[in-house]
């Protein structure tokens, strides 16, 4: 087996450790919070890169899948089942250890669903919804697909905003800790910044490992080929609609899983996460990163989200991503890591001087 394709992943792991040591070393631990959040957004980005860049299917509704994950886990883990212990299914969940019991700040007993179970349920719901909308809309191409996914994003946003169990405009807060493996905890406790940072990056590493494998596999070649030429791919034996649907679902699940973990990390989720501007931001970042470029999109995803989260774009946050999208489409449609336009620019200068 060739290990060469994994070298960048080893590089990533080293960079993650280096940055943590550096940041902690200079006593700027609080940077880790935004780096953790950027990591979770990074998972959405690389999932979208597979869909848009490699398989050539645009989605301007990916924030919806992030929100589906986040809201599912937020709703399920903040619901108190203490009064419902007689209901057979609740009883069953308690007996099988799939619930967690505790006390609320007023000393009242609460029983809620284990985040592991809500993660699982979120993934199932995401697969179901992605398949349900994917089957009809993936028949569309180009602008039409863009509009259909945009429509889907708007629907989810309005549902979130209008439904009381999703907290309407306030969103859901007080989402409990997600007890990860080896008793590591995902929550917003500032004391646990380092461990949260590593958990988030571990999930990034796993995601990028999976996607690296995929694009170099038989199915990965098939999904790239349908981007290259659908008719030819079909004639070479690639089941176009099935392949598109599977990539769409995979990409949706990555966004959803990121949503679940981010929600536990932040201790809540609000409707902005499902907004159309969020989806546009993801698309913009995938475009800057070079579309069919896992590493390019991941790096840009981390940098731009980090800057945004630290507030460098001020109140023009969304506008910045809109501008990025326009500028990239005009001057570097292959992303900023392929600096063809730069060469052209240099040529131009040489000519005029």
């Amino acid at each position: 087996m060739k290990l060469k394709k994994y070298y960048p992943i080893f590089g990533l792991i080293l960079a993650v450790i280096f940055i943590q040591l550096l940041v902690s070393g200079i006593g700027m631990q609080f940077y880790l919070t935004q780096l953790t959040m950027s990591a979770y957004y990074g998972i959405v980005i690389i999932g979208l890169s597979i869909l848009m860049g490699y398989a050539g299917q645009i989605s301007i509704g990916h924030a919806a899948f992030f929100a589906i994950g986040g809201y599912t886990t937020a709703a399920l883990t903040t619901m108190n089942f203490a009064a419902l212990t007689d209901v057979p299914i609740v009883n069953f969940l308690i007996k099988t250890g799939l619930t967690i019991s505790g006390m609320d700040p007023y000393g009242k007993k609460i029983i809620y669903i284990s985040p592991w179970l809500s993660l699982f349920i979120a993934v199932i719901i995401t697969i179901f919804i992605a398949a349900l909308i994917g089957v009809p809309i993936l028949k569309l191409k180009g602008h039409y697909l863009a509009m259909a996914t945009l429509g889907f994003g708007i629907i989810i946003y309005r549902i979130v905003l209008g439904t009381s169990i999703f907290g309407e405009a306030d969103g859901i807060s007080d989402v409990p800790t997600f007890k990860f493996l080896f008793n590591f905890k995902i929550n917003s406790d500032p004391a646990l910044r380092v461990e949260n940072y590593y958990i988030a990056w571990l999930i990034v590493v796993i995601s990028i490992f999976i996607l690296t494998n995929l694009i170099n596999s038989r199915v990965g070649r098939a999904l790239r080929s349908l981007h290259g030429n659908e008719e030819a791919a079909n004639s070479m034996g690639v089941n176009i609609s099935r392949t598109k649907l599977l990539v769409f679902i995979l990409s949706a699940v990555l966004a959803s899983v990121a949503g679940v973990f981010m929600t536990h990390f932040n201790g809540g989720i609000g409707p902005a996460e499902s907004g159309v501007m969020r989806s546009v931001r993801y698309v913009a970042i995938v475009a800057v990163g070079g579309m069919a470029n896992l590493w390019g999109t991941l790096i840009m995803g981390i940098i731009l989200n980090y800057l945004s989260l630290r507030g460098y774009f001020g109140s023009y946050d969304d506008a910045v991503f809109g501008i990025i999208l326009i500028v990239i489409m005009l001057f570097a449609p292959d992303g900023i890591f392929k600096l063809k336009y730069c060469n052209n620019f240099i040529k131009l200068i040489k000519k005029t001087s």
Partner: protein
Amino acid sequence: MSFLEVKHLFRSFGGLQAVFDVSFTVKKGSIKAIIGPNGAGKTTLFNLISGVLKVDSGEILFNNVHLENLPPYKIAEMGISRTFQNVKLFNNMTVRENVMIGRHTRSKAGFFTGMFNLPWSWKEEEEILNKSEEILDLFHLEEVAHLYPDNLPFGKQRILEFARAMTMEPEIIILDEPAAGLNIHETEEMAELITKIRDWGVTVLIIEHDMSLIMDISDEILVLSYGKKIAEGTPEDIQKNDEVIKIYLGDDDA
């Protein structure tokens, strides 16, 4: 029982009868050419056989299995591969990867296997690579294997498309004007490759306007005009056929 059998095939576009009551058979291991003037319905016929277009009526039987209206990928799975009149390559993948796609129907690794690079697929991946190298070698593409197809000269692009279709190890290969746009040397190379694969036992169905190439390599020729079959036979028969002569030289003495 015939290897490939087309019976009373019809297909129209709006009011235009592109293929009208066409029937013929193809013998296993032979080279059969379809000729005819522009717009005769040759490409349409190929699109019907390869599933790109649906038939209006009629039957297409391959080893006695009905092909009509199956999706293209199913037809590919049955061992029929094709090239296109206007070359259709994957310009987002290297020449080598283009050829590797040719093994799609001959391998099985699925989504999960791919995502986790499961060990059982390693051997299959190796087999795909080996076969692709073999084909790249044979079609003299090994030096450009790392390039992207849109950087190749047109002749090489046609050869690559042919190579990709052959990597599948098809039973029948359908070639739509493989020599169109090629210079004399490239056409010669193409003719050599076509006869070479026939010698391996691959059946060839070919559309071509280059008459000397057609007369040279084909065992049987079918002539279409305005969607209808007007003649069928050996190259000698066709060269002597009055109606064919009229179509090709027609307008002068009309």
